[in-house]
């Protein structure tokens, strides 16, 4: 049992905190949101210079060789500032898929570029009809000319419109919602037949609808085992849950701090509103929720390295539920305690609120994961 950070981890968090406090004020972020791309190429390069894009990538591929805890610390810092760059999509989701399923050639080709900040990935798995069901894939990949022909559509692909390469799931066998028959493919963003329509999510981050119309990929595009990609997809999703859980912790920290500050400084009826005991207790309840959520985000991170898949999935689901509920409560109360100002686009708390809202609806929502846990009660 050990909750201490290593020296390296301390160094990492300090340098990230410095970078973000210099370059990610709310005003700077708002300016970024107003650009067409909605995030900063320049900052992405800075992340690369700091080694962040290579954080969990092996040293042999130009990475830092860090572990799940390092990613957690980074995502938490990103959450405090609502960082907009495609770290989750590229390094966490795409990177995990390559790390787990890529062969030496694929890893050797792609991971160094990811680490260097010169290539961005996206994870194109979920489809519209699937909602949260990771086996509900209708996109097909049929053998053709030694390679595969991909046909189908993907929905709400995070940072899908600006990625250079996409990790696309498709059926090489089985039928809708079957566990068997899924495969992953690396598809170039400019592959003929691939159409992307980008848009923003409610939190300002970027996503896309993909349509694949007779997209031809070579045999070498297959990532991992044919027909047996489900365990990889599962672990990519788990990595996404752990990373976004940490991000929610960071977001809650900022919202809670802003709320405390507001309670202390906002004067109404001649006194700071924080003198109202009812509001004080609400702030204390937010703290309790935040600390319980923090514990669960830690659990998610620690569980990523658990070998027993059932136990890992159970802990991940617990964390998704715990962080989801804490995030919803804390963000709703943060807006409530701010009153009118909390409802405006010009004030930061609503942005944190929406990021937490979007995250709750990624990778299975609270109800979905509670359902999985309920199934196992015995």
């Amino acid at each position, binding site marked *: 049992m050990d909750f201490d950070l290593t020296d390296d981890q301390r160094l990492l968090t300090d340098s990230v905190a410095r970078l973000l406090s210099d370059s990610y004020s709310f005003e700077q972020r708002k300016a970024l949101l107003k650009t067409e791309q909605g995030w900063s190429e320049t900052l992405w390069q800075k992340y690369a210079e700091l080694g962040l894009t290579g954080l969990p990538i092996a040293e042999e591929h130009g990475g830092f060789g860090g572990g799940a805890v390092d990613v957690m610390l980074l995502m938490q810092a990103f959450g405090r500032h609502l960082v907009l760059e495609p770290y989750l999509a590229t390094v966490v989701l795409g990177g995990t898929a390559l790390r787990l399923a890529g062969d030496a050639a694929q890893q050797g080709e792609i991971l160094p570029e990811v680490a260097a900040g010169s290539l961005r990935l996206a994870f194109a798995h979920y489809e519209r009809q699937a909602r949260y069901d990771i086996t509900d894939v209708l996109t097909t990949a049929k053998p053709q000319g030694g390679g595969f022909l991909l046909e189908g559509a993907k929905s709400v692909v995070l940072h899908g419109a600006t990625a250079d390469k996409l990790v696309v799931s498709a059926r090489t066998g089985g039928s809708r919602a079957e566990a068997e028959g899924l495969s992953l493919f690396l598809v170039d963003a400019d592959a003929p037949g691939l159409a992307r329509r980008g848009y923003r999510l409610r939190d300002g981050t970027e996503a896309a609808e993909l349509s694949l119309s007779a997209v031809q990929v070579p045999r070498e595009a297959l990532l991992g085992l044919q027909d047996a990609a489900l365990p990889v997809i599962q672990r990519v999703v788990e990595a996404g849950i752990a990373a976004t859980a940490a991000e929610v912790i960071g977001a809650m920290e900022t919202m809670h701090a802003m709320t405390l500050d507001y309670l202390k400084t906002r004067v109404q009826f001649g006194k700071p509103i924080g003198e109202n005991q009812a509001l004080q207790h609400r702030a204390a309840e937010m703290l309790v929720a935040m600390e319980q959520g923090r514990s669960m985000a830690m659990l998610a991170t620690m569980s990523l390295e658990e070998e027993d898949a059932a136990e890992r999935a159970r802990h991940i689901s617990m964390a998704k539920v715990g962080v989801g509920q804490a995030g919803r409560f804390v963000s709703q109360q943060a807006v409530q305690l701010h*009153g009118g100002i909390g409802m405006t686009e010009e004030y930061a708390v*609503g942005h944190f609120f929406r990021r937490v809202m979007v995250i709750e*609806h990624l990778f299975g929502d609270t*109800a979905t994961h509670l359902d999985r846990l309920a199934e196992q009660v015995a």
Partner: protein
Amino acid sequence: MDLRFTPEEAAFREEVRAFIRDHLPREIRERMRLGHPPRKQDTIAWMRILNERGWAAYSWPTEWGGPGWTPIQRMIFLEENLSAPAPELLSFNITMLGPVLIQFGTEAQKKHFLPRAANLDDWWCQGFSEPGAGSDLASLRTAAVRDGDHYVVNGQKIWTSTAHNADWCFCLVRTNPQAAKRQDGISFLLIDLRTPGIEVRPIISIDGSHHLNEVFFTDVRVPVGNLVGEENKGWSVAKYLLGNERTGIARLGKSKERVRFAKEVAKEVRMNGRPLIEDKAFRQRVAQIEVEMKALEITQLRVVSAYAKAGGNRPDPLSSVLKIKGTELLQASSELVMDVGGPQAMPVWQQELAALANEPAIGPDWAPQMAPNYLMLRAASIYGGTNEIQKNILNKAVLGL
């Protein structure tokens, strides 16, 4: 004691329902069913249809064009209107300005403004809140100084809902800064928003919509004829306005409509390989909300009925219960809808832009307004006195704490 509606009340409900079914323009209904807020022209069109039927000024006495309904009829009408779903009647015109003019206005003010308000010829907004005041209304600072036949107004209002749509604004202004109590020395003025010196700046809400505004007044000249009630006695006018009938405060029809919509979409989306509507946990969540809505429906009937019995003079302090529970259910039902939508509820689907560009819509038609509705309704427990303030009211007025 009888909870059932009388045959007359039931017939009235049918009449209202049929009228709305037959007269609400289909395009407006369809937009609203998908959760879109009514556009300015939608509200105007619908108010005028209702006004032609004599229903727009639903809470006014017959001599000023009201239908002469009982509080229970008013409640039924509002619930049916919300459930349809039809655009809500512009409350600034109907439940705020109207009763205030009827009580405090001059004959000239009544004759000029009331028919125009009922027909939405003038769109009114409310200039009460100021920066830094929040629920502490009496701390307002916008000044009106008498200069001949005019007041000269300088200051700033905030959270002015629909000011960008509005033609007129009823405002609280300070006419005597030397008054002993903060509540004294305030006056109630009607201000034409086309008067020089007024600037309306948008405030964008977290759902991306433009409802709210800041309104700046710089040397704005308002004729003294636009004073309502006595000079320096505006606080009583405002108290009358705020204390007025709160029949519609629970907005239960809206919650019911949202739950219906959630169930409808839940037949289309999936959970564990089956329609979500078949999921036990989802059904329990719906059932729980429906139980609370049913309880609130009866609580509302009790409050409205007591209000009617008491001659309609003062709102029951229990109307704070309606506000608290009503907004909790608005929020619970909008959360339900958003959760049904799930990932599809998260994008800013540019449906209308897409249509303009002749591209097919990219999201499901039920999806675009799910998150905005949820986001916007976080304000329901803030505006009109936060739910925390409502609890303070209950403590003072009912519990004696």
